[in-house]
């Protein structure tokens, strides 16, 4: 009979978890956190293509360029564990189609969004039923898109947007111990990708939109190179952060941004950088700087989006063979 009044230890002995980050490299080239090789304001390259799923009225596939460390690990594998991951997702748009019989009359388009991780998408296996974080992403995506779609042009009809995430961003480096700065940072990158891909798929489905909405992520990170030296860890603003590449992300922001109208339809800010000691060069490192950074990242994604949608329009109009 166990003692229910006290917190008991486990019946048998346990061993503390050993994280790769705390291991002193014996051979010299032990596992190391991937490093960011990009400039702070440089985005990863984005692959975006529309119209890949013929049965849907609109579809898009989005992929981020693998980080340099991942590309190196793929060409000459040292470990079975990939150092970081790159976002890959597919988006389908079904509709406009009639509302289900039970639904009430709606003079507008009824938007439903589903975001689902494939079971193999993340390092932790995902179930087949959508969990809380996936539903959360769906709600964020819906708010981002609702402000863009001209809903009153589609009375009595529904639009279903389904996103399957084939490879998700990491929330932190896999070798790291969980720490106080932990948060699902990877979800924010995923959301930005979802917004961009959904925007392309909606344009591919010829649903009226005010603008092509693009998602962008910016984060304030404390640079680990400086932090290891000890004294001053200067927080820096980085665009399109890969969470695996940073020791601690203080705060991050994702926006859905319409460049032609200079409007934001969705904003998600997470984290706290108020206690961070601000560097001299980044004197204005506040929320506004973070949001501006995310907007700049969204502008970058928008240029890719424009190309993908133009390609879709050319194919659709039968101009694909012309020299454009």
């Amino acid at each position: 009979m166990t003692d229910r009044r006290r917190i008991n230890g486990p019946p048998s002995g346990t061993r503390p978890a050993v994280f790769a980050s705390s291991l002193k490299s014996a051979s010299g080239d032990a596992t190391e956190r991937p490093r960011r090789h990009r400039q702070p304001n440089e985005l990863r390259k984005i692959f975006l293509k529309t119209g890949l799923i013929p049965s849907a009225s609109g579809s898009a596939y989005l992929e981020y360029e693998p980080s340099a460390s991942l590309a190196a690990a793929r060409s000459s594998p040292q470990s079975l564990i990939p150092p970081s991951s790159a976002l890959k997702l597919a988006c389908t748009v079904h509709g406009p189609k009639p509302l289900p019989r039970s639904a009430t009359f709606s003079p507008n388009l009824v938007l439903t969004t589903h975001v689902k991780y494939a079971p193999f998408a993340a390092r932790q296996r995902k179930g087949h039923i959508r969990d809380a974080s996936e539903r959360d992403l769906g709600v964020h995506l819906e708010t981002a898109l609702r402000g863009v779609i001209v809903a009153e042009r589609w009375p009595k009809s529904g639009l279903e947007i389904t996103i399957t995430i084939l490879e998700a961003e990491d929330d932190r480096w896999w070798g790291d111990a969980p720490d106080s700065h932990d948060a699902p940072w990877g979800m924010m990158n995923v959301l930005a990708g979802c917004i961009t891909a959904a925007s392309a798929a909606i344009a591919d489905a010829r649903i009226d939109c005010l603008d092509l909405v693009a998602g962008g992520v910016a984060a304030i990170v404390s640079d680990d190179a400086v932090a290891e030296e000890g004294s001053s860890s200067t927080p820096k603003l980085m665009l399109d952060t890969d969470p695996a590449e940073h020791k601690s992300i203080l705060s991050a922001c994702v926006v859905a941004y319409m460049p032609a109208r200079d409007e934001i339809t969705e904003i998600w800010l997470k984290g706290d950088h108020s206690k961070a000691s601000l560097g001299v060069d980044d004197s204005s490192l506040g929320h506004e700087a973070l949001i501006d950074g995310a907007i700049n990242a969204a502008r970058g994604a928008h240029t890719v989006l424009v190309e993908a949608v133009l390609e879709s329009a050319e194919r659709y109009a039968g101009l694909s063979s012309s020299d454009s």
Partner: protein
Amino acid sequence: MASTLPTLAIPGQRLAPVSSYAAGPGTHVQNANIYASIAGPVLVNPASSKTAKSTLSVSRSPLRKAAPAASPSAPKSTAPGPSKPRYNTLPAVDSIVLARVTRVQKRQATVSILVVLDESASNNKSGPQPTTTTTTPTGGSSDNDNIEAILSSAANPENHSNSDELRFQALIRKEDVRAVEKDRVVMDEMFRVGDIVRGTVISLGDQSFYYLTTARNDLGVVMARSEAGNMMFPVSWKEMRDPVTGAAELRKVARPF
């Protein structure tokens, strides 16, 4: 007017100020400027009168032979090629639809809308429309080939049960069947389950049904099978005949041409 119009527009692209053009389908107006709201070729419909402005629109369907005045540099439009037209147009009031009868009751018939006929195809009746009523295709454009494919699959009794939830449902009430002798209409003598009906939308209706009417000479049953299962041909405005058995059946027939 100084800026030229682009051949292809993407959502959010500024096309022209409202002072020089009127906004048509596929566009929206913000801050006295016309912006594109879908991706596609930009069309300019010339004004009907001198005082009116030309209408600027973004086409939802691929370019047709009637090349827009704005883009004379688009000769590829004559070959629509493999790009299949997709009908994600919604039924609106006054639009002409083709629908299949799914249920006939004493006071109304339930139909499910198969195709919303393109406005440009129904306005300039240059021949392709009767192809829907005859069994011999007269080689219309690719749109009408597609409609035939939809209809022939829909008229096949094997396909009746599937994907009705994916289609817009509509009602033809007893008093909307024909314009004369409305009180003597017997629904069983007007429609049968499986008939293909051409009708026009009179109302968006309630939460689940649109309302259609066939109270015009060119509206009514366009394709029907007899009791024996043969495709019938129309002989009068209220009768169709089976070519094999010779039996006549009553329908509210659409004028075939």
